[in-house]
C-alpha cells in the first residue's frame, strides 16, 4: 500500500466513523449555527460602525470557526481510545501516516464548518467580501495549521485526564498566532487587498507545525 493510500484510508475511516455516529459532527455544526445566530441577533449588521466592521466581522468569524472546530478536532485520537481501536491502528499504520490521515480529516471538517458559517455571515451580518480568492486562501492556510496542531495535541491528550478542558488549555497559546494572523489576513481580504504578508506568515506557521508534528508523531503516539 502506498503512503498516500494509507493516509487516505485513515482519513476515510475517520469520516466513516463520524458520519455513522453523527453525534459529534452534528454537535460541531450545531455549535457554529448557534454561535452565528447569537452573534447576528445580538449585534446584527447595522449596529457595527462602518469603519470597525471589517475588523469586528473578521474577529467574530474566526472566533466562531475556532470554537466550533474545537468541539470536533480534538476527537481525532480521543475517539480511537474511546472505541478501543487505538492499539490496532498503532500496530498497522505508522504514526506519521496516522497523523497525516487524521489531519486531512480535520482539515476537511474545518473547511466544511467554514462552508456553512461563511454564507451565514454573508447573509446575517451583511459581510462584504472584497477579495474572495484571498478569503479562500486564508481559510485553507488557517484551516490547515489548525488541523495539524489540533491533531497533534489530540494525540498528547488522548490518554490524559480532563481531556476536553486540557485540550483547549494547551491548544490556545499555540494556535493564537495563527488566529491573529488569519484575522489580519481576513481584514485585508475584506477590504479587497490580497494579504501577502499575513498569508506568508500563515504558510510559514503551517510549515513549522507540519515539520514539528512529523518529527514528534512517533513520540506522541507511542504506547
Amino acid at each position, binding site marked *: 500500500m502506498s503512503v498516500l493510500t494509507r493516509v487516505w484510508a485513515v482519513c476515510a475511516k475517520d469520516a466513516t466513523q463520524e458520519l455513522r455516529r453523527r453525534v459529534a459532527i452534528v454537535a460541531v455544526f450545531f455549535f457554529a449555527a448557534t454561535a452565528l445566530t447569537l452573534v447576528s441577533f445580538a449585534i446584527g449588521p447595522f449596529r457595527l460602525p462602518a469603519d470597525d466592521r471589517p475588523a469586528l466581522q473578521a474577529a467574530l468569524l474566526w472566533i466562531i470557526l475556532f470554537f466550533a472546530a474545537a468541539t470536533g478536532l480534538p476527537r481525532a485520537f480521543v475517539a480511537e481510545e474511546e472505541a478501543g481501536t487505538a492499539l490496532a491502528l498503532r500496530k498497522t499504520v505508522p504514526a506519521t501516516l496516522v497523523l497525516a490521515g487524521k489531519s486531512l480529516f480535520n482539515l476537511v471538517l474545518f473547511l466544511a464548518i467554514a462552508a456553512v458559517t461563511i454564507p451565514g455571515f454573508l447573509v446575517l451580518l451583511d459581510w462584504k467580501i472584497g477579495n474572495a480568492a484571498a478569503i479562500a486562501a486564508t481559510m485553507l492556510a488557517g484551516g490547515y495549521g489548525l488541523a495539524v496542531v489540533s491533531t497533534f495535541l489530540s494525540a498528547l491528550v488522548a490518554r490524559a485526564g480532563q481531556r476536553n478542558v486540557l485540550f483547549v488549555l494547551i491548544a490556545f497559546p499555540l494556535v493564537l498566532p495563527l488566529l491573529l*494572523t488569519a484575522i489580519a489576513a481576513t481584514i485585508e481580504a475584506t477590504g479587497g487587498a490580497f494579504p501577502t504578508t499575513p498569508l506568508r506568515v500563515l504558510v510559514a506557521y503551517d510549515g*513549522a*507545525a507540519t515539520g514539528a*508534528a512529523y518529527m514528534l508523531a512517533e513520540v506522541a503516539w507511542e504506547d
Partner: protein
Amino acid sequence: MKVLKLLLLPYMGAVIAAAFLWPEPAKGFIGESSRIVFFHVPCAWASTLAFLVAAVYSAGYLWKRNPWFDDVAAAAVRIGLLYGILTLITGSLFANIMWGSWWNWDPRESSYLLLVFLYAAYLFLRSAVEDPERRPRIAAAYALFAAVLMPFLVFVAPRVTASLHPQTVINPQGKILMDTPTRAVFFGAMAGFSGLFLWMLSIDARAARLRRTARNLHRD
C-alpha cells in the same frame, strides 16, 4: 561554581544600585520610567531562556530517556513561568506610566501573556497525565512542539500587527539605541538575571530529582 553563587548577590545589588544611580533617564519617556528596562527586559530574556532550556532538555530526554533531563525541563518551565509573570508586572507598571492604563492588549505584551499561558499549559498537561512513565514523554513532546511555534508568538505576531511597545533592542536597524552607561547597566543586568535563573534552575531541578528518588524508594 560556589564562588560564582556567592558573588551573584553583591553583583545583583550593584546592578540594582547602578540602574537607579548611574544612567540618565532616556529621552522620550516619562520621568524615570525608562529605568524599568534594566528589570523588564532581563526578566523577559530569562523567561525566553527558560523556554529554550526546557526545549533542549526535553529533546535530550526523548533522545536519552534520562529522567534528570525531564527534571531540568520541568524546573525550567516553572522558573520561566515566574519570570514571565514578572515580565508582565514590570511591563504593566511601565504601560500605566506611559499610556495611562495597566493593560492595552498591545501585541508584544499580549505575546508574553500567551507565553505565560504556554508555561501554565505545560504544567497542567504534566499534572493531567497520571502514568509516571508517559508523563515526561508527553511533556517533552509538547515542549518541543511549542518551541517550534514559539517564534511566531514572540517575534512574528507582534510585528504583523501595529504595536505601542518601544522599539526593542533587537530592532530592524540592527543598532543598539543606548548610550554607554545605559548599555553597561543593561548588559550587566542581563548577565545577572541569567546567572540568577541558572542558580534557581539548579536548585529546583535537584529538588525535583530528590522528590523522584524518594517516590521510587517509597514504591520499592
